[in-house]
């Protein structure tokens, strides 16, 4: 547990993730990336730790939210680095982990 930094979208951000950008509405993917994901990602890279993101506990995700949050992170730091540091956890919707990995890979294209 020591070499991992944990982020829970439901507990640390919102149980109702919203649209892609801040202009589109509250609890956007952009807000999640800027306020939660990116600072924790940087911390994980600096301390050479894994960043574990728990996707469970929310009412549901829109595709834009996930693309903006994780794809946006990959556009900034590169897909390879993000895939190396990030670990996705979901018991409720395990298929979203695959979707997110695709967003991260597609971000570099």
């Amino acid at each position, binding site marked *: 547990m020591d070499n991992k930094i944990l982020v829970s979208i439901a507990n640390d951000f919102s149980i109702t993730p919203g649209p892609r950008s801040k202009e589109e509405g509250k609890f956007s993917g952009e807000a999640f990336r800027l306020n939660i994901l990116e600072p924790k990602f940087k911390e994980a890279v600096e301390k050479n730790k894994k960043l574990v993101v728990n996707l469970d506990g929310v009412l549901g*995700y829109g595709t834009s939210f996930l693309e903006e949050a994780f794809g946006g992170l990959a556009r900034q730091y590169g897909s390879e680095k993000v895939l190396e540091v990030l670990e996705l956890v979901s018991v409720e919707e395990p298929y979203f982990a695959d979707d997110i990995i695709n967003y991260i890979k597609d971000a570099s294209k």
Partner: protein
Amino acid sequence: MLMILLIILKMQANKPPHDNLLHFLTLLIGVGFGYLIFALSFNGFNFTIAKDVGIQFDFFQVVSLAVTAWLAVYVLRRLNKKDEFKKMEIKILADYFIDFRKEFEAVIKELLSEKEMPLILITSQMKNYRTRLEMLVNTAEQHKMIEKDSLLTSKLKGKLYDILGILTYTPSKQDPEGTYVTVKNGNVAIHQEQIDKTYAKLYETQRSIFEVIIEINKST
């Protein structure tokens, strides 16, 4: 004795056919044994038709024959019961898929009838149906009704994901091309193009569900 037999048979009339047959055979064997024991105990069981022709009962052969017959019926009955359970399981799961198809169609049509709605309404409904589909597919796989991670189920799951994408995806700043839904204040405005695309995907989804049901029925 015949009367007793008839009464017992009448009492068994409402039971399943396999039960009747087993009871009838057991009764017949019982009556046969009773008669044999009765005849042997009086030491007068030697029936001769002509001088050189006689009917002789070998007690052990009769027992062996009776036990074999009883076992045959018992095994047949057990196998049929197992088959019935499997058929019942398949029917229950196929019915769940049919209910899923009907409910999903109704919900999507209702969502599409609104030109504008909260984004969370779409995402929560889609989470509900994607999770339910996952559970149904897992159950079918566990009971070996469909192959694990088959192309058929992957296609079906993909269709639901596509619908979620059509109804919730907005362009990124890096990739503003294409036509998408519009989101403002957390509310989604669905345009005619997205409605048409969603309907097309919905019909593909129904077809995929139908194919999965056929596959499940083949597993008997």
